């Protein structure tokens, strides 16, 4: 490019009217958000309303759908049972299932947390190229369907599976690993670990390791550096990971159904059963709404936690 040519192009530019393709953020047309809002209302809002309405209806004669009249029967059934004489008894059966779902979800959250924190910190301290490779590796499980991955655990844990084959090779008796609650938790942890790992990794990648050096310098041992400096800095990621694991684990049904066997019910499995085998949509709807309420309570607790973090100056507002 020669000099005179450069000069002429600059003049041409100057002659043209100035066109600035820039807009103040937040001034774009609100209609751009319309598709998402419509989809949200149509496929999230409306169905929730339908489920709530269904929970106050009666069972349809054929079993599919709902029928009149309006009734509180389904909600009562969550806590009470009626015998043939019409006497009402307190029946904790469903409360027990709800409780089991809650603590299994909590256990899953805790186990994924314990697995994810060291892994996330380890990844975050690798050289940049290896780091992106490892993060990609953490998403590999998403490439295969959850159902298939859960079937894989059935094959691994059953009486003739390789785990028991290995145990027997040492001359020990095979363990009843499958079906069981133990297998369910393994399946849940396995599926949900990436959801815990990725947000914690995001926090760990932002962690300023000079803070750890400062703590050492001030007399902190390795353990104190982890508990007093590293973990508090990972809180936003930990919080997000807990939401992403606890909430879906609470309503999970694939793992309890495939790995837990018929005896161990979870919210997810009984909801599924009401809609299929038992053909009782209104009662299924009532349990679904109960699950929704439970989820909201859990989110509320996490939200309070994140608000406390936000008060500490961390950008971690969830709700």
């Amino acid at each position, binding site marked *: 490019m020669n000099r005179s040519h450069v000069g002429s192009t600059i003049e041409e530019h100057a002659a043209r009217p100035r066109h600035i393709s820039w807009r103040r953020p937040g001034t774009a047309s609100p209609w751009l958000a319309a598709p998402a809002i419509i989809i949200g209302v149509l496929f999230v809002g409306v169905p929730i309303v339908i489920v709530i309405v269904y929970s106050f209806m009666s069972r349809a004669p054929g079993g599919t759908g709902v029928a009149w009249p309006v009734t509180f029967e389904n909600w009562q059934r969550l806590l009470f049972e009626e015998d043939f004489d019409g006497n009402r008894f307190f029946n904790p059966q469903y409360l027990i299932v709800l409780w089991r779902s809650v603590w299994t979800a909590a256990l899953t959250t805790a186990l994924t947390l314990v697995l994810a924190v060291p892994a996330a910190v380890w990844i975050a301290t690798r050289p940049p190229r290896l780091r992106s490779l490892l993060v990609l590796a953490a998403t590999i499980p998403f490439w295969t369907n959850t159902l298939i991955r859960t079937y894989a655990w059935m094959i691994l844990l059953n009486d003739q599976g390789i785990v028991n084959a290995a145990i027997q090779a040492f001359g020990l008796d095979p363990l009843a690993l499958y079906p069981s609650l133990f297998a369910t938790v393994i399946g849940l942890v396995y599926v949900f670990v990436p959801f815990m790992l990725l947000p914690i990794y995001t926090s760990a990648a932002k962690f300023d390791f*000079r803070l750890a050096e400062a703590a*050492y310098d001030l007399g*902190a041992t390795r353990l104190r550096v982890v508990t007093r400096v590293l973990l*508090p800095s990972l809180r936003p990621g930990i919080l997000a990971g807990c939401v992403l694991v606890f909430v879906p684990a609470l309503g999970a049904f694939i793992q309890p159904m495939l790995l837990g066997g018929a005896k161990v019910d979870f919210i997810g499995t009984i909801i599924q059963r009401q809609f299929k085998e038992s053909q009782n949509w209104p009662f299924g709807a009532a349990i679904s709404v109960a699950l929704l309420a439970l989820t909201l309570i859990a989110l509320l607790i996490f939200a309070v936690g994140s608000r406390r973090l936000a008060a500490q100056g961390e950008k971690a507002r969830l709700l």
Partner: protein
Amino acid sequence: MNPVTSDAVLSVRTLTKEFTNPEGTVFTALGGVDLEIMPGEFFILLGPSGCGKTTLLRSIAGLEQPTGGEIWLGEERIDELPPFKRKVNTVFQAYALFPHLTVRENISFGLEMEGKSPRSAEVQTRVSEMLELVGLGEFGKRKPHQLSGGQQQRVALARALAKRPSVLLLDEPLSALDLKLRREMRAELKRIQVDAGITFVFVTHDQEEAMSMGDRIAVLNKGTIAQLGSPRELYGSPVNRFVAEFIGEMNFLTATGNADGAMTAGGTHLPAAAMIEPIPEGESVTVGVRPEHLRAVDRGPINGRIVAVQFLGTDVRLCLRLGGDEEVWARVSLDYEGPTALGSEVSLAPTERSVRVVRP
């Protein structure tokens, strides 16, 4: 092994540090550093970026493992202790305040690590003392992100001082502040150092900062100490060109000794009276003279045309081109009434005993 008997609070003996790069090449960041730092001293490590200042400081703090040499803190050899067992503390360049803790909690952190309860009267009193010392009395409940850069810097200082270290290490603590605040903080740091009665080892690449605060300065060049001395010694008798250039300003000329002084390569005569030491006849050397030692006179030995003028408020700097494309800067006082227009002729005379032979 016994320490070499000395009163030094911190001794560094032939300390070396080599970094091995991923390609396998070895880089010597510290090439045998010796230092004896006295109790209560404000000691400065001065050098350009990359000369190994931070590496030396981190080796003393225990955050870097030296390749060779010894570090003694009083009677104790510390170079093999983990950082949390060394009675030295660091003020980091980027402050490294804990973002999730309040100012008070940041300051009490180090005391807590000694096993003291953060709520104990002892700790709380010490924290309040430290806040007073650095002038942040009312800011104890704030989080670091609610403070300005200068305030964060003071918190970092208070946090490190709260542990009453034998030696406080400061790695370019003022470099993130603006010029005005930096100047204020120099006097402030000096006051705090005297009040706290703690030995400071202060790293900087800013010679003005070094000169204005240091009791003694070690000038570092490529991992070794080029010269160590008081600011006056370094300014008055730099041992080589690197130090002469780094501390203050200096004009360098190539000159050959003759019967009545020296003649520069460009043909300017330097009288014998201006020489600090005589140049042997016929020998070619580099000589240096500071701009403030060149006075504007009616008829002097150094004559040239003005090629640049800088008004600095307190004085005027003139750059003259002499014969043979040699250039010198002169600092003349504000009442200078000679010509300042570019191209005008000016005559300069060096003051007595102001031209020195500078070794490479």
